[in-house]
């Protein structure tokens, strides 16, 4: 039995660019032997759940996605290939703390990471986007990173740091200006505005958005790292027994999966080489323990020399080459484009994704994992999307015919030539003289 783990591809010297995927790979590397699973470089549009990481078990044809569900699923598998981390022998306190810290990582560390790698325009265009381009086959870098960025921006929206996204900021300013123009307000010419003291002059104008918000950003980061700093992540090395006895409550201990998740988030904060490294600087300056944990853990789990991660070979492996064929890539690209059609595109994609998942569920032979659909909305949205798309198509075709036929886009459809009337006027000056008489 070989499990297939579909994840985002490697970047920044780490096995995956996405935190959750990275956590899963880290967990697999420590609990499974390399012969028992296969890492497949993928993107969300290629898996039925539209979410990475996704685990595929070929023997039961089951798809599982998300870090937590995958870890759960692994624990239902049989040893010997899977080395269960000993959960039962740990005190229940450790287990409870681990749950809490896992929730903290997803609720607070994820938005921070989103701010640093995705929301900040400079970091995104210099570092993140090229990294995505490197791991995706050709037309997909046009669609997929955008979707990821949108999701990440939504993730971090509650922090109120959207000004880091200078593209969006410029767009907003331009829109405001157009509105003002339309409303008929007096306009100061652009050239004058700069001299008077507009956006780009003075010290403030020279500062990058990250510098302007530096204090608040550092505050946000500190809130998270202070809490994470309480955890003893590197416990194995420091002799675990002694510390516990010494004091009733020493540093907090957590389970392996929480460590993996913490490593994933912290590594993606610390390791990428970004042009606006505020998050990295905060970590390095004040939280040496966390940095040490990241480097140490990486050295231990993914040694430079030694065991290699079992990446699937693109050419030889049938499972991988199927989902990487040109045909499927074009299909994925087209679906992403359709998804961008306002209003209806999203409905259609919802329907498509639901259908794909249902097919995957029906194929699965494991009954316990079959998931009920929530509220019979799929049928209705199918009808709605179908009707809407048909209407749209009819409209587009009709509009095209109308333009072609009546608006003369390519010239009038019927060209007529009238023979000029032969009258007295056509006989020169003499004719003109007599025309008045006629």
């Amino acid at each position: 039995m070989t499990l297939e783990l579909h994840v985002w591809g490697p970047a920044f010297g780490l096995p995956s660019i996405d935190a959750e995927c990275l956590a899963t790979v880290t967990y697999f590397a420590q609990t499974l032997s390399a012969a028992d699973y296969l890492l497949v470089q993928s993107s969300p549009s290629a898996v039925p759940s539209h979410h990475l990481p996704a685990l595929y078990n070929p023997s039961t044809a089951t798809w599982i996605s998300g870090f937590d569900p995958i870890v759960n699923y692994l624990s239902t598998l049989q040893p010997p290939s899977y080395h269960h981390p000993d959960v039962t022998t740990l005190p229940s306190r450790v287990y409870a703390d681990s749950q809490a810290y896992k929730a903290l990582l997803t609720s607070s560390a994820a938005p921070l990471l989103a701010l640093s790698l995705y929301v900040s325009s400079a970091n995104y265009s210099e570092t993140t986007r090229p990294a995505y381009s490197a791991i995706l086959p050709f037309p997909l870098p046009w669609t997929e990173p955008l979707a990821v960025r949108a999701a990440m921006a939504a993730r971090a929206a509650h922090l109120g740091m959207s000004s880091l996204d200078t593209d969006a900021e410029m767009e907003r300013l331009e829109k405001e200006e157009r509105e003002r123009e339309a409303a008929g307000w007096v306009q100061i010419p652009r050239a004058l505005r700069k001299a008077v003291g507009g956006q780009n002059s003075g010290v403030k104008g020279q500062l990058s958005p990250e510098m302007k918000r530096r204090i608040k950003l550092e505050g946000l980061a500190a809130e998270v790292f202070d809490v994470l700093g309480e955890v003893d992540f590197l416990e194995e090395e420091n002799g675990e027994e002694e510390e516990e006895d010494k004091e009733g409550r020493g540093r907090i201990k957590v389970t392996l999966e929480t460590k993996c998740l913490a490593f994933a988030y912290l590594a993606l904060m610390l390791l990428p080489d970004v042009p606006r490294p505020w998050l990295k600087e905060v970590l390095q300056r004040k939280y040496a323990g966390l940095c040490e944990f990241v480097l140490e853990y990486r050295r231990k789990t993914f040694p430079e020399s030694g065991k290699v991660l079992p990446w699937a070979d693109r050419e030889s492996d049938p499972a991988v080459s199927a989902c990487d064929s040109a045909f499927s890539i074009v299909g994925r690209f087209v679906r992403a484009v359709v998804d961008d059609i306002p209003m209806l595109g999203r409905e259609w994609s919802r329907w498509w994704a639901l259908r794909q998942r249902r097919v995957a569920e029906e194929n699965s032979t494991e009954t316990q994992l079959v998931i009920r659909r929530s509220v019979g909305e799929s049928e209705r949205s199918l009808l709605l999307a179908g009707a809407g798309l048909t209407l749209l198509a009819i409209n587009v075709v009709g509009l095209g015919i109308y333009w072609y036929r009546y608006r003369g886009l390519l010239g009038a459809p019927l060209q007529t030539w009238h023979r000029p009337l032969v009258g007295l006027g056509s006989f020169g000056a003499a004719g003109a003289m007599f025309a008045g008489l006629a």
Partner: protein
Amino acid sequence: MATTSTAAPPRKWWQVPRPLQKVFDTFPLLAYDVNALPARAQSATSGDLPTLYVFSTEEEALLGAPSFNPSCLKWQAFLKLAGVKFQILPSTNHASPTGALPFILPARSSPTDVPSPIPSSKLHDYALKYGTSNPPEVSALRLDAYQALLDVPIRNAWLQALYRDPQYIDLLDRFYITPASSSYWVRGALRHQLRRAAETEIRKTGPGGAASTALSLLVDEHSVYRAAVKALEALATLLSESKTGWFFGAETPTIFDASVFAYTHLMLKYMSDAEGEVEGEKDFILASRKLGIMVRSAGSGELEQHHRRLFELLWLADSNAELLDTKARGNKLLQVQLQA
């Protein structure tokens, strides 16, 4: 041309012409006293007591019963804990200055006084300032981590159950849909909107935790509930370590107790079967999709016990005295409404 004189102040050429000036000088003819607010406003908005606006029904608000919205209930419980005297009124998000309930309108000191509403972000300070008994502050860094448990898995499970689970459609209608409109079409649209909003919220933290792209909408309810069971288990463990029976070993209940209570109370009240011991397999509990049962079976019942103690402390202890009081006030309110 204007003529100048040395005695009068220098006249300027744009001065208002004298006849017009005379007309203006007669104004104001008479300044009336400021109108008092309508009599109904006195008791219906803010009377002698500060008013907390929450999601509730008319009858339950009169009795001061717990709100059915978790964040409203959290602040309602905390204000009671702090010993603030207040009344509650049903309201909607549209009425709130911040766009979200709850908010509190302080008591009016004079009939013309216009108190400014206090949004939920400042309610903590308000409670400490005006309360009679100060709930202790918890200063544990772990508090933030456990707060995240409430913010992510438990909140997601609540959203999933109430908004997306077919078995609670009636509950959703009763809470948010029926009071809002009587039109079939409006209700349908509202339901759809709420469901989508809940889905977006759950998706933000994803099936496994991290943000997911727009298409992985298919919120996997199984894993949402499983995460909630684990979170409740963790909270029960934390509670079992405390000697006082309140979280983090505090002497009296804290804000964290109020936040936990807000969820456990609603889950136990609306999302469990009739009272009685539920013994079952873990898988059976998961499959039932009833959050109340999950609360009850977490740990060895610590959460249910915690809920009962807090409920008795806040609602049952002074219920006899207060019930009469609220009833009297309710009658007065009705009378005033009839008169107006």
